[in-house]
């Protein structure tokens, strides 16, 4: 079994996964408390706040939500490692699901001076997928496309039918992925050093989890990339 050294202790991958899972669960309760406290304060329930008090609390809430997301990603990664990722498949409108992600990310894209377009090619049937999980993948890919682009971003998303599958594509004009990094991109905790320069707050878990979701849904996920030109991520999902 592969081992990792932490300080003087040597822990198996399995043990690390177990410890990560337990700690992540334990973090959720105090994080829920912090988030709830901040929401109460921001709702003026306990009295009005000054503008700058509100601003500080909003920043704290935003940081707390990021921590909750990180904990969720750690738990998801543990579930992937232990083959415990559960998909709750149902008939889902894939196009609507993608449109919702684009709409949710619109303000972030605008703040980063990026635009997102969506092309729907032909009739796209409903798919039997876990809509929440697949939406997580779509969100991750488009969010990364926005984050890892310098200057004006041009993100082109398309959905089309490809035989018995639906093909999702997200093309960007971002920093790209070097040949050396290409093999590592779906590896747990891997973060590109060039990516870290642009966005320091990633966990290196998004693509690892995304791959697991797509593979477990019966699809494939891959990418093509040219350094400093851009990256295109693709995934397929079976029509059934």
């Amino acid at each position: 079994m592969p081992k990792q050294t932490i300080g003087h202790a040597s822990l198996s991958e399995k043990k690390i996964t177990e410890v990560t899972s337990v700690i992540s669960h334990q973090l959720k309760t105090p994080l829920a408390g912090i988030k709830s406290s901040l929401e109460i304060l921001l709702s003026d329930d306990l009295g009005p706040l000054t503008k700058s008090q509100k601003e500080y609390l909003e920043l704290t809430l935003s940081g707390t939500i990021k921590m909750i997301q990180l904990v969720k990603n750690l738990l998801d990664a543990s579930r992937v490692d232990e083959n415990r990722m559960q998909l709750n498949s149902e008939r889902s409108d894939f196009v609507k699901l993608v449109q919702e992600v684009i709409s949710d990310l619109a303000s972030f894209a605008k703040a980063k001076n990026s635009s997102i377009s969506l092309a729907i090619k032909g009739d796209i049937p409903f798919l039997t997928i876990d809509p929440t999980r697949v939406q997580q993948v779509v969100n991750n890919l488009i969010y990364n496309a926005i984050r890892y682009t310098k200057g004006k971003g041009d993100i082109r998303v398309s959905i089309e039918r490809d035989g018995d599958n639906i093909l999702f594509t997200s093309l960007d004009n971002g920093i790209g992925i070097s040949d050396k990094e290409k093999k590592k991109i779906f590896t747990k905790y891997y973060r590109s050093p060039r990516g870290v320069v642009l966005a320091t707050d990633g966990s290196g878990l998004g693509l690892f989890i995304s791959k697991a979701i797509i593979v477990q849904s019966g699809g494939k996920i891959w990418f093509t990339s040219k350094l400093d030109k851009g990256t295109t991520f693709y995934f397929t999902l079976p029509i059934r």
Partner: protein
Amino acid sequence: MDQKKKILLIEDDKFLLKLYSDKLNREGFEVSMAITGEEGLGKVAAEKPDLVLLDIILPQKNGFDILSEIKLNSATKNIPVIILTNLGQDSDIKTGFELGAVDYLVKTDFSITKLPEIVRKYLASSAQHKR
């Protein structure tokens, strides 16, 4: 004036217990609290609250067992139970609804500011059911 509706909060984390109970008190509810599964079940039977907010991971007896027992007892089976937990896996949510919960809230995902509104919604549908 309407009698205050009584909410039983079964939650072992004192920080969350204070936040949820204070919020409900401010909104005009009477709040009773229990910090273990056994204590919670005892209070459901003794106090017959109008609604129960129930955590899952609790000392002594877990929330799913408590929910089952509430629903098996003819004196308490019509009390609406909302699960309020950090277990957000689909299988847990499914179990909660199968056992008879009216709603399932994940603590990190829902906003506490919406709690009174959610509680009122189920109190109203419970009152309608009784008519």
